[in-house]
């Protein structure tokens, strides 16, 4: 990959990746930070980066891992903040998206990651499993529980639907 190709790839993939990472982190600044850092590492380690056939997936993996490790570090802090601050009322996206972000934030991190990778980034259950280092069965359980929890959080209209634990089995 030449410098120009890298720059073009960066310009094209950066917005998409920040959107995906936002769904996972629920924080714009955080999403930008980890995606940017992942790009720096990609150029720093071009060999391993280019050996991978899916450069965008490589970046996303690195960014997600960065977000996870940051999340671990700040988990305690976040817990404290949540106790003291009223829920964020971000203007901008429609109310259903605010609700979705809020609902995603309530999920345990492992469930949220599985949901985002599977439903947003189109990874198969097996890919999610290898990405997160968890057994396939565990990933399926996380997806199913995550979906159930989201449905519950996302208001009465969707909660009215029966949570089809079996029917919600993933491909």
């Amino acid at each position, binding site marked *: 990959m030449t410098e120009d190709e890298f*720059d073009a790839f960066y310009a094209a993939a950066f917005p998409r990746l920040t*959107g995906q990472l936002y*769904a996972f982190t629920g924080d714009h600044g955080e999403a930008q930070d980890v995606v*940017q850092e992942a790009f720096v590492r990609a150029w720093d380690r071009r060999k391993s980066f280019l050996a991978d056939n899916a450069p965008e997936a490589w970046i996303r993996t690195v960014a997600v891992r960065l977000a996870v490790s940051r999340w671990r570090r700040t988990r305690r802090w976040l817990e404290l903040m949540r106790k003291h601050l009223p829920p964020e009322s971000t203007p901008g996206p429609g109310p259903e998206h605010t609700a979705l972000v809020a609902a995603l934030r309530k999920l345990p991190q492992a469930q949220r990651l599985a949901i985002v990778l599977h439903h*947003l980034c189109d990874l198969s259950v097996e890919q999610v499993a290898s990405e997160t280092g968890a057994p396939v069965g565990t990933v399926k359980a996380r997806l199913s529980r995550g979906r159930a929890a989201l449905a519950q959080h996302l208001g009465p209209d969707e909660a009215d639907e029966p949570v089809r634990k079996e029917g919600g089995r993933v491909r």
Partner: protein
Amino acid sequence: MSDELTRALRELAAQNETPPTVAGTQIRSLAARRTRRRRTTLALGTGAAALALAAVALTLNTGTDTGPDHRPPAATPHLTSPAPSPSTSGSPAPSPSASGSPAPSVSAVPTAIIGTVDFEKHTLTIDGRTVPIAAGSPTLLSAGVMTVTAKLNLDRDSVAALPKTACKTADPHVVELRDTGRTSIYVGAFSCSDDSGARIRLDTKDAVWLYKSLKPGDVIAVVLSQA
């Protein structure tokens, strides 16, 4: 639910896409800086390993280094004694105060190895700068370390190993090193009629640089050729 969730998540992601805040070139220069930093760390690590190796080699060498004159090992004398003056450097003697006692605690590794003379690659490295050895691969040397014992000026000092009749000097500045076996090695910009013996020849500018870089007491690691 799954499809709805996928759709909702996609919309959410699409709405929260952010354009890059820094240009691709900046990303690359950041990465390049990091690569350099990592290389430096690696080099330092290698240096530390070389130091440890040299320390081991020194320990092993001095185990058998109980010559008749009971001089301390090459690496230790000038840490405690002043540099020999040029006038006496024709036969530079290590610190007289230590002459009676054999090697003190050898585990007290010489303060710092500041360079390497590598007869495998024919290079000499001091403070990160590497220069080629133009000629000379002394056979008398043992692997381990050498200590700078004197800085000589051939216009002033006469050195038995560099007779004026046989050696032409491009620059009078010569550094004398000694290994643990008390063998003297001379480094400078000279060419002698025979290229054997205890001499390492450098380019003139390299020889001047070396003369300025080293001071008596400095310790240099020696890597011998495998041949």
